[in-house]
């Protein structure tokens, strides 16, 4: 499979009055054609900044690309000019957001907003664009699309609005769809509908998807590969099945332990003590160290990404070949439980 997007050593800082916030640090990953990758983590871990930076949506200043490259079709998005960006956004890379109400313009009809994309990027006439808009709305499962194109966003429900957003995003056949918590604002039965739709369109159109979420259940059903972020770093990257069956980073493991499962009853939920570090003065070593049960002296130094297998990497010193054997065993025992 062809690689469509390559993020290399991305580092993003925000220069604020309080100091420099290191929101994203040393993030690298590849996205292949037709692949769905999940970007998981708690609020403030840098997942939305990472995805926003791919479309250059981070306000600058205060934001700043301190380092790294984002390669798309052999061009570095970080260095693109406005004209190139306009051709990229919404056309080659599209995005859907968490709250579909605030992303749609309340004073324009749904049809006008959909048509704008087609007219701008594909040079369609008004008539063609209208037909395409109706067709796209039908594809995303909106009943009576001929009437819907004339309605305003407030006349639609949350799930419908998200479908309109998806229709808008996929209208130009983008190579990449970035979905930033697309179902967080929706109810579970509607979430199931939307996830089903994204999956269907992903296999029909072969669009690569970056799914940003904090819901490990959604990730399990949707993604081929998962990147777990913590305090601005990718701490683990793995094939979805490996990640859930054999988590290698203590953070991933604790996160999986702390969520209740609908299909089984747990006695007591495992908690992660403390809270994520302040990114204004991030710890010099592993960001998870203060909350980690398995921390050792070495963790004061930043761990590199160790390779576990071809498709599995994790940034934890426990994977170093010289790590004490009993500590490794202790962790393996806990995971097996």
């Amino acid at each position, binding site marked *: 499979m062809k690689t469509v997007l390559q993020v290399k050593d991305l580092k993003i800082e925000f220069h604020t009055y309080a100091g420099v916030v290191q929101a994203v640090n040393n993030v690298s990953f590849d996205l292949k054609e037709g692949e769905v990758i999940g970007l998981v983590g*708690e*609020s403030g871990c840098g997942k939305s900044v990472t995805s926003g930076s791919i479309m250059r949506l981070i306000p600058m200043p205060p934001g700043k690309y301190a380092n790294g490259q984002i390669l798309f079709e052999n061009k570095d998005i970080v260095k693109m000019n406005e004209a190139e960006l306009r051709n990229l956004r919404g056309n080659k890379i599209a995005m859907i957001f968490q709250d579909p109400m605030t992303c749609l313009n309340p004073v324009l009809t749904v049809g006008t907003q959909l048509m704008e994309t087609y007219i701008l990027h594909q040079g369609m006439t008004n008539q063609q664009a209208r037909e395409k808009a109706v067709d796209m709305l039908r594809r995303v499962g909106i*009943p009576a699309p001929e009437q819907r194109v004339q309605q305003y966003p407030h006349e639609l*429900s949350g*799930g*419908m609005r998200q479908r309109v957003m998806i229709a808008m995003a996929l209208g130009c056949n983008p190579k990449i769809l970035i979905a930033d918590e697309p179902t967080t604002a929706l*109810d*579970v*039965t*509607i*979430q*199931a*509908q939307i*996830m*089903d739709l994204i999956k269907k369109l992903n296999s029909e159109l072969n669009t690569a998807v970056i799914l940003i979420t*904090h*819901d*490990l*259940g*959604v*990730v*399990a*059903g949707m993604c081929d590969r998962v990147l777990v972020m913590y305090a601005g770093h990718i701490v683990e990257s793995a094939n*979805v*099945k490996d990640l*859930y*069956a054999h988590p290698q980073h203590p953070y991933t493991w*604790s*996160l*999986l332990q*702390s*969520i*209740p*499962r*609908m*299909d089984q*009853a*747990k006695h*007591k*939920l*495992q*908690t*992660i*003590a403390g*809270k994520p570090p302040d990114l204004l003065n991030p710890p010099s070593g592993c960001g998870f160290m203060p909350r980690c049960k398995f921390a050792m002296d070495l963790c004061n130094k930043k761990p590199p990404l160790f390779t576990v297998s071809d498709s599995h990497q994790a940034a934890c010193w426990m994977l170093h070949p010289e790590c004490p054997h009993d500590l490794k065993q202790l962790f393996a025992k806990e995971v097996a439980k």
Partner: protein
Amino acid sequence: MSDTLIKLSNLTKHFNVEYSLFGKPTKIVQAVENVSFDIFRGETLGLVGESGCGKTTIGRTIVGLYEPTAGTAVYEGKDIHAELKGANHLAMKRKIQMIFQDPYASLNPRMTVGDIIAEPLIIHKICNGQNDRTERVHSLLRQVGLNPEHAGRFPHEFSGGQRQRIGFARALAVDPKFIVCDEPISALDVSIQAQVVNLLQELQQELGLTYLFVAHDLSMVRHISHRVAVMYLGALAELASRNDLYTRPQHPYTKALLSAIPIPDPVIEQTRQRIILEGDVPSPLNPPSGCKFRTRCKYALARCAEEIPELREVAPNHFCACHIV
């Protein structure tokens, strides 16, 4: 556990949203329609449903924030709303407390944490004198896992999870018997949710509290509740013990709801057959006749449009409101 603490009988709550020129309501939101159930002493009853199904309205009506349109809510044989209007209203308020969803909006930003927790103590005249009160505030803070030194700080200095703990301390200040937890964890991060839920369970065991746990996260409700009630568009669809409801759901809506919840396990998740509901929840301004779920139900019969299904006991202690079950 079969000792009834709270009894709701045909509780109905309507909100008038639009009035005619002469003050007659023209648009009515039927938020809660004829809901009856019991909450037993010492249990956690989970109340689940999608947004707009009336679960929060029930919680707020029980605490007395809303006056019911019809029906009653009874606490240990006393009508809560009659009691709240009478001379003994403080005694009733002491028994029933509430924890709110948004820990950012439910704490006064201009008061210190100590003052926030001391306020109910002053209103209910629980502690005599400043020293007693300070002592009590400190012990409450310790009880919810905070530090007594935190009493002098303001809410903005705390994280979401810690603020929710402050909310618990305020609710616990008056020694309540019953607490309505209105989505106490939905605004928190996953790793923090577990901390807060564990705290809720510890407090329940220590103090013998009874909870009504309102939530939309069905996995968490399974974890914390003894019994679970499922609501749809203002009506109760199903009520059963936790294990019965999750392993043997009866109502078509419960089945669809459970199947929509993603399970954090790719092996199960990628092979699972989902029941995907068509369409959206109808507006409570103009709910469908008969069974409210019939517009999205694939088993709907002609009868479902005519007759409102009663909540029947379909198995021991398993209640379901559906004609076809």
